[in-house]
């Protein structure tokens, strides 16, 4: 999708999200009483937890769950359970298995129906009979670490293509895992080519659930959203990950994303059953759990996402404030525009044209020990100039 189309789509999405879609219970969604409040946890007495059904699995869970990948803290998992979260996501490879071991030690103290658990196992042996056995043996290791006979969802980890999603050996392995009782339901996880993989999951007729990367910053968000809708309509349960898009707009991590807003934006899609943010503090747990009781984007949250998403933190407003602070009078706004064309629009031709207008291939910052130019948006001016200046080295004919 062209970037202007994407901007238009995002704008419309935010308008829709703030209006018609909000407050209308999605199919398979209900609100349940919040129960006893825990100290420090947001279980508002006057609000009900938003629960959705995970496609044809029939599993029911709050719209926000816990991705456990970043936390080895059992107290945080217990606190999430006590706060009303019921679904937990881990993987065979996280912390070399210690993540699953930690969860096993926590969950052994809870009734099995008090939570649902998903783990992910990657196949590294290609598409062969040996791959089936290898993958199932890894599943058995995961179950042993988790101290369980069965998980609720077992994902084939990191599927990036239709071909991989439909690999006969892996489909066989997944079906064997289900038939043998190692898992109640099977799925796949995907970080790339999500629409293609989502469609393949439907086509297979095997996958009950897809765990997909989806966030407001994705260039191809509209096509991911459309594929999610197709899969959901076919009965495939949708779990969202990477909803916070890395937490920052910029590579230097100077412009933080409003993570709560980003989370709300994704779970407002009624086809998404739950999201699995990977929080590491009790404060983050409280903030994420508050979304389980209210997915409404405030005006401020809506504005923060709209502003940030438009150019992904790459947009230079060309105010020229920086120029007065630069002792070499470098045309910084032009460099920032070239940077945006390079990384935002992926259009090297445009970037090259802007750099040609500047007219020099030499490093304009060469004789400065430190940068005195100040950007009102906090862009790391010198780093971006050094980075994008490389584009001017590309022969123009190669950009035709």
């Amino acid at each position, binding site marked *: 999708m062209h970037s202007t189309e994407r901007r238009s789509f995002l704008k419309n999405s935010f308008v829709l999200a703030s209006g018609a879609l909000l407050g209308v219970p999605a199919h398979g969604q209900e609100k349940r009483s919040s129960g006893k409040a825990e*100290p*420090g946890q947001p279980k508002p007495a006057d609000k009900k937890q938003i629960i959705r059904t995970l496609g044809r699995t029939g599993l029911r869970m709050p719209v926000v769950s816990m*991705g456990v*990948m*970043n*936390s*080895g*803290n059992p*107290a*945080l998992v*217990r*606190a999430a359970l006590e706060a009303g979260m019921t679904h937990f996501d881990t*993987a065979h*490879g*996280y*912390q*070399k*298995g*210690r993540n699953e071991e930690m969860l096993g030690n926590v969950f052994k103290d809870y009734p099995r129906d008090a939570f649902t658990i998903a783990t*992910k196992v*990657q196949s590294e042996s290609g598409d062969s009979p040996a791959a089936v056995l290898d993958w199932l043996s890894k599943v058995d290791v995961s179950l042993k670490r988790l101290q369980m006979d069965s998980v609720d969802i077992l994902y084939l*980890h*990191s599927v990036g293509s239709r071909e991989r999603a439909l690999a006969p050996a892996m489909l066989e392995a997944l079906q064997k895992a289900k038939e043998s009782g190692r898992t109640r339901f099977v799925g796949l*996880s995907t*970080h790339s080519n999500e629409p293609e993989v989502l469609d393949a999951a439907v086509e297979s007729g095997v996958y009950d659930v897809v765990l997909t990367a989806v966030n407001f910053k994705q260039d191809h968000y509209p096509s991911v959203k459309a594929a999610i809708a197709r899969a959901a309509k076919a009965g495939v349960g949708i779990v969202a*990950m990477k909803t916070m898009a890395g937490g920052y707009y910029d*590579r230097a991590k100077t412009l933080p994303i409003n993570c709560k807003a980003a989370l709300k934006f994704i779970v407002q899609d009624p086809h998404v059953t739950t999201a699995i943010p*990977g929080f*590491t*503090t*009790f*404060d*983050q*747990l409280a903030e994420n759990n508050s979304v389980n009781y209210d997915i409404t984007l405030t005006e401020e949250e809506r504005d923060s996402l709209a502003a940030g998403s438009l150019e992904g933190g790459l947009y230079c407003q060309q105010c020229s404030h920086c120029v007065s602070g630069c002792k070499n009078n470098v045309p910084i706004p032009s460099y920032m525009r070239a940077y945006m064309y*390079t990384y935002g629009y992926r259009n*090297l031709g445009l970037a090259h044209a802007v750099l040609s207008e500047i007219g020099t291939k030499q490093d304009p910052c060469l004789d400065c020990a430190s940068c005195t130019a100040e950007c009102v948006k906090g862009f790391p001016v010198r780093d971006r100039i*050094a*980075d994008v200046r*490389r*584009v001017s*080295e*590309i022969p123009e*004919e*190669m*950009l*035709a």
Partner: protein
Amino acid sequence: MSRGYVIRSAVMAVAFLLLPLAVMSGESEPDVFPGVPGWTLLRDSTVYTPATLWEYINGAADLFLSYEFQDLHIAYYRTSPEIEIRAEVYKHASGEDAYGMYSQERSPQNAAVPCGAEGYSDLGMLNFVAGPWYVKISSNQTGDQSQSGLVSIASAIDSLLNQPHRLPAGFDLLPQENRVPRSEQYVSRDFLGYSFLSGAYMADFGAGSGCRIFVLPKQNPAAAQSAYDAFLRVASSAERNKEDVFVRLHDPHHGNVDLILRGNVLAGIIGCVDTHALRSALLKTLP
């Protein structure tokens, strides 16, 4: 213009964008893979960065990033008949960060190996940490030749990296007496689930007792005081006996914590019923 030329140009342009800035500016990558007699070295040309690590290890990348992961270089060592060993060298911003990530993945069941600051091995794998590098060596084959190959290659990489064979200095603030070997952990941020507790050195004391001591050396006494005050604020209760240098607080998620502030160091004991001996030991190592 031929179609082939256009495609080639496009590929080159995309490849150009993907080149790390360091390579473009002529900086040479440090060599972390030595030659090992009897083994053929094959370097993987892909270098993973914070932006691309997830392509290699999926969601596990997030934890590496929280320990200031810088880059990952990979190589393969092969020998006949048909044995291949993979060496992954993860570079972090500091020795503390590398040790922190290493200690997140270390299993207490594995056997210690004298490699780097600390290392351990199991069938088909050997991991160790040396300065800012976390090194993982593995093989799908688990025979004697493969196992001895793991050790040879690990030793060679350790020699090349040439880092002191000692834990990060922060662990010197923890008592030695009754410290459980290889239980040390460095937690870079969100220690105990609190954002105000960062840079924690921790170890178990008394095998199986559940007792742990942690120390957080801060930049200055004011920063330590700030963390101390924040901890007191989340406690449901706090009490201190007369002339006691420790305060006992009750944390809603972790139970009793005996907390002490000494200069720029915040320290504590958790998971213990009787903390008398550990208090005495800790007082000897704190500033």
